[in-house]
């Protein structure tokens, strides 16, 4: 409210850039990734080698897929802190099932995704049905799912040699030169981008998050929407867990510990509003890619890994600050959209 002049119509050059950046969040982020990659490549040309790009995109794809699920949940004004335990549990169970030769790879993968869905459904039941605040519920399942993982795994670890020959080759497989993982992530992101924009469910998801009261008046069944968001988030974490197992080969009970930080960071950097109602899965995916490149750049530039955590923190804080600044500048139009257009055609809000 302090800057009424810019509120009316951002006429200045800077104002226009910021407005554009805000409206084209994904484009801005994509541009940033390119600039970052170019700057780092000047110092460390290996960044652009195909093997390095394959590695960066593989790991960013895993985080990105989990971030898509997290975005669905955050859009409804909730959060799922248990994703890392879901990823870890699914990764271990799938690896173990394969190591024991209990299922064929394809069946094991389907089983893993199904397990993720079940874990997500459990979260959904707690939050949507039993009214447990999502932060409490998923903090609880964060340690419960991890506990189950420990219980199943004990001191065991599944290694590359235990897995069916060729199973982990998928991590480095390419289709017309593009890494398979990246294609999987792109396909998932594209699918959910369409779902969010084109379907009733998608619009209702935005509506529930941006204005619960209006959503209720419009007859949207908020609980069902929230439940489905959690279920899908679990399922996507299951997909991420399967890929995790393929990527790393060695899986023990501590797999993916601490990953929730990266997943939430990817969403925040990608412009998903933690208060719900705005943000896109494309943004979250790009956020994951951006963070992946930063972490890769630190390794290639031979900078101390100790800086990584600090830089992560700064990136999150800067991203969220810029977001707030931009949102304030756009306050008027956004407010209008949110409260009126928001509930009805919320899918379009702030796209």
């Amino acid at each position, binding site marked *: 409210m302090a800057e009424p002049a810019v509120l009316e119509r951002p006429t200045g050059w800077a104002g226009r850039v910021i407005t554009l950046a805000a409206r084209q969040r994904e484009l801005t982020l994509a541009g940033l990734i390119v600039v970052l990659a170019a700057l780092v490549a000047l110092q460390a040309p290996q960044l652009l080698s195909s093997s390095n790009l394959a590695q960066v995109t593989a790991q960013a794809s895993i985080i990105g897929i989990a971030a898509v699920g997290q975005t669905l949940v955050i859009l409804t004004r909730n959060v799922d802190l248990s994703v890392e335990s879901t990823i870890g549990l699914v990764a271990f169970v799938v690896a173990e099932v394969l190591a024991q030769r209990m299922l064929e790879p394809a069946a094991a993968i389907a089983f893993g995704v199904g397990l993720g869905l079940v874990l997500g459904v459990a979260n959904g039941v707690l939050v949507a049905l039993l009214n447990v605040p999502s932060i409490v519920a998923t903090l*609880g399942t964060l340690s419960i799912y991890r*506990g189950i993982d*420990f219980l199943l795994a004990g001191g065991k670890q599944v290694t590359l040699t235990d897995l069916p020959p060729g199973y982990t080759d998928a991590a480095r497989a390419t289709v017309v030169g593009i890494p398979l993982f990246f294609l999987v992530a792109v396909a998932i992101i594209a699918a959910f981008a369409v779902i969010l924009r084109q379907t009733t469910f998608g619009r209702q998801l935005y509506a529930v998050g941006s204005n619960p009261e209006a959503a209720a008046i419009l007859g949207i069944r908020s609980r069902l929407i929230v439940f489905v968001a959690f279920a899908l988030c679990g399922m996507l974490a299951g997909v991420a867990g399967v890929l995790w197992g393929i990527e790393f080969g060695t899986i023990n009970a501590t797999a993916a510990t601490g990953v929730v930080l990266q997943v939430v960071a990817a969403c925040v950097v990608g412009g998903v509003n933690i208060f719900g109602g705005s943000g896109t899965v494309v943004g979250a995916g790009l956020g994951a890619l951006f963070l992946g490149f930063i972490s890769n750049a630190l390794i290639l530039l031979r900078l101390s890994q*100790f800086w990584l955590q*600090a830089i992560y*923190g700064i990136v999150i804080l800067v991203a969220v600050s810029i977001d707030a600044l931009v949102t304030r500048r756009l306050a008027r139009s956004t407010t209008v959209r949110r409260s009126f257009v928001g509930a009805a055609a919320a899918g379009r809000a702030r796209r």
Partner: protein
Amino acid sequence: MTAAVARLARWEILLGLVLLALLGVGQAMSAVFLTPRNVANLTAALIEVAIMALPLALIVIAGEIDLSVESMVGLACALLGFLWAAGVPLEAGIPIVLVVGALGGLLNGVLVTGFGLPSLVVTIGTLALFRGLALVVLGPQGVSGFPDAFTTFGFGTVPGTPIPWPALVFLPLAVILGVVLHATWIGRQIYAVGKNASAARFSGVRVLRLKLALFVLSGTIAALAGVILTARFASARADVGQGMTLTVVTVVLLGGVNIFGGRGTIPGVVLAALTLAVLGNVLRLGNVSAEIQSIAIGALLVVSVVIPNLAHQVQALYRRVRGGRHLPAGAVGTG
């Protein structure tokens, strides 16, 4: 107000009963359970968590959250080690560390109140930032060789009693914060802000300043917990405190503090800390595997919210069937 206090008091009584039941289980299970040494051990095991839970409770009651506390513990520990290794005496090092803690809290507070950012995201950011700074300050090595008086304070007990020295930090702090929250205008403002920030603002509460102060308090106390942990470990490392936030938040929520703000008490938090400490001790004495402990704590957290909600819903359904009024939307909160 009195009604609210009376209502909340029940949760504390019940927590107390759980605690008693656990003590009974412990006593029946192991002859060593109530020995002074065991009492000292189980108190010491969770003392830093309990200390950090006190200011966090105030923050949550005021409707915000601080997830960065564990990294502030690490930063305080690393900085104290760095200063000590550089020849700075503890008399100077500890105050410096506490000031850094306050500054860290100020950063959180300014980002939340000044920029209007969500505290969940801000403190996830500083969770990474403070840990990164800790690693940058101290690097890979550990620092030890602290004076005996300092490490005795961390590990020893008050002579002739089973009371660990750090408990003498916790108890006054709990009393002071309890009095502030429950018997002063500051406390009333914290509740008011948590229940309805805009209403509180219109009735003259300086919401932003209050929240800022709470974040500074949280940062300072987390740094203090880091100092105590350094003393108890007799060494400083940058990775100290990892994973602590989960336990601290669990203590606060189990203590009956509403995650959405506006409700909760200090006695509840103190009892919750004791309950978790005894629970961990009982499980360890019973050689229950660590996996089960992690599941039990997570389940306890969820169940403590699920059951009241379920009962509430059943009751609401019963009323509706009897032709009672519909519940207003959102009334089925967490309690």
